[in-house]
């Protein structure tokens, strides 16, 4: 596991003016490379399933899940990459229950699909990048 603090520090200051503080939790180096200039990115070298479990831990510790963990039709384990938006504000009880269910279901779904190699790593990274970028664009428009 490796956290790249550079991305975090760089973006923390710029994030200050945003209406809801959020950061991108990802194991996708393309997301870290392309989005860290304008956004706070926490990059961790984890598997698909591990990054979902990391998100779950962060939800349990009082942060909010802002994107769907099963985004994209490239299935869990078929792509090695996953990016999620995590809000730093504490969720309501209702939001907490809803997002915990989403993340638990996503973790459970990991066993349903067969793992693949990384021959097309760049393409998998690109799809994950476009999925999370669509969410970032929504997040930057409002809360």
């Amino acid at each position: 596991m490796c956290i790249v603090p550079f991305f975090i520090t760089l973006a923390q200051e710029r994030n200050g003016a945003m209406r809801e503080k959020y950061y991108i939790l990802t194991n996708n180096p393309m997301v870290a490379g392309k989005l860290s200039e304008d956004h706070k990115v926490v990059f961790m070298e984890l598997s698909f399933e591990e990054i979902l479990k990391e998100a779950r831990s962060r939800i349990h510790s009082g942060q909010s899940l802002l994107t769907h963990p099963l985004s994209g039709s490239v299935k869990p384990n078929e792509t090695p990459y996953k990016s999620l938006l995590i809000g730093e504000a504490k969720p309501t009880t209702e939001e907490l229950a809803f997002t915990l269910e989403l993340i638990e279901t996503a973790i459970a779904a990991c066993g349903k699909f067969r793992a693949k190699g990384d021959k097309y790593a760049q393409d998998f990274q690109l799809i994950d990048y476009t999925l999370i970028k669509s969410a970032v664009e929504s997040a930057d428009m409002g809360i």
Partner: protein
Amino acid sequence: MRLEMGHIYIRDIQFAAESKIADGVLYVSEEALKAVVLEDEKLKSVSFDIAKPGESVRITPVKDVIEPRVKVEGRGGQFPGVIAKVDTVGEGKTYALKGMAVVTAGKIVGFQEGIIDMTGPGADYTPFSQTLNLVMVAEPVEGLKQHDYEAAVRFAGFRVAVYVGELARELTPDEVKVYETPTMMEGLKLYPDLPRVAYVQMLQSQGLLHDTYVYGVDAKKILPTILNPTETMDGAIVSGNCVSACDKNPTYVHQNNPVVEDLFAQHGKTLNFVCQIITNENVYLADKMRSSDWTAKICKMLDLDGVIVSQEGFGNPDTDLIMNCKKIEAEGVKTVIITDEYAGRDGKSQSLADADVAANAVVTGGNANEVVILPKLDKVIGTLDYVNKIAGASEDTLRPDGSLEVELQVITGATNETGFLKLSAR
């Protein structure tokens, strides 16, 4: 709004020096088609092929399937906001070339899918094994980004469909069908005792190879809105998505949506088909909240008695599906939802990523994880280079004897969630 659909049946496609339709045969100039595609400087080269039902041909990776149509009377043209100028379509007269399709194929990304087999067991799972397919494989100029390549192929497919459709402009249709929806007030007066029913169509809207466009607008950016169902018959909604291929709606499905067709068949008899409501399936949870709130609000404002909700895709959209279902039911409007299942290869896993007691009327398109063996076919249009990487495939997908062991996911339209599919429980 009243649309007259003229059907012109195509029974063969042949390459010829001159493009024309005569006696049900589409003669098409390959050179003219190439010129239509290569007017976009982002595309370096293109090849065309014809695949006919029953031939030992496999088309892969398929990107989109489009039915050629031409607007002969009324406002606007085919694919408004994309090919034709923006104008409200869905009224007047449109001709469709039935029994054929334009299929765009080729690699955008390395793990892309889907498969159309024209014969064998695979043909039993895709509706597009039954159409005469004019297949286009376009190559990008060097260094073109995947986003731009995807858009270039998408637009080229529509231009080819419009070129072919125009050949029918002066023909007399073999069959004419009329589709008409009254205004809200007229509908109330005409059918005071019939239940008011609408169709809620959920559109893929997540990112590259997961997008849909409405009058040229990226569906991620729309708020739920209402359409006359005939608008989609003139190409108001077009596909920009193809993974997983089994439960994505190619443009052909939007043009020929069976939910719309069946609701029209009952319109004025057992129900009043009020309108089509479209909504999206975004990644951002607040977008899901907003869109499902709006969809339910529109259902309430229209005083609907019931809706049919169709999903596109799985996983992330399962959440939108259930949110829509719960919120619409909470407004006192009955729902029937159409989905498909990812229940594992043995069919024993949880089928959907979300569920609720309000979802008590569910139609399924089948289990996308079901394994099928597709025998080697004589000819491949496109390439098998990526077949091990398509969704539902694995490293041992391509077997030594040339056959493929795949899940239904890879087959274009196999578990389609509008009912445009060949699987049935009957």
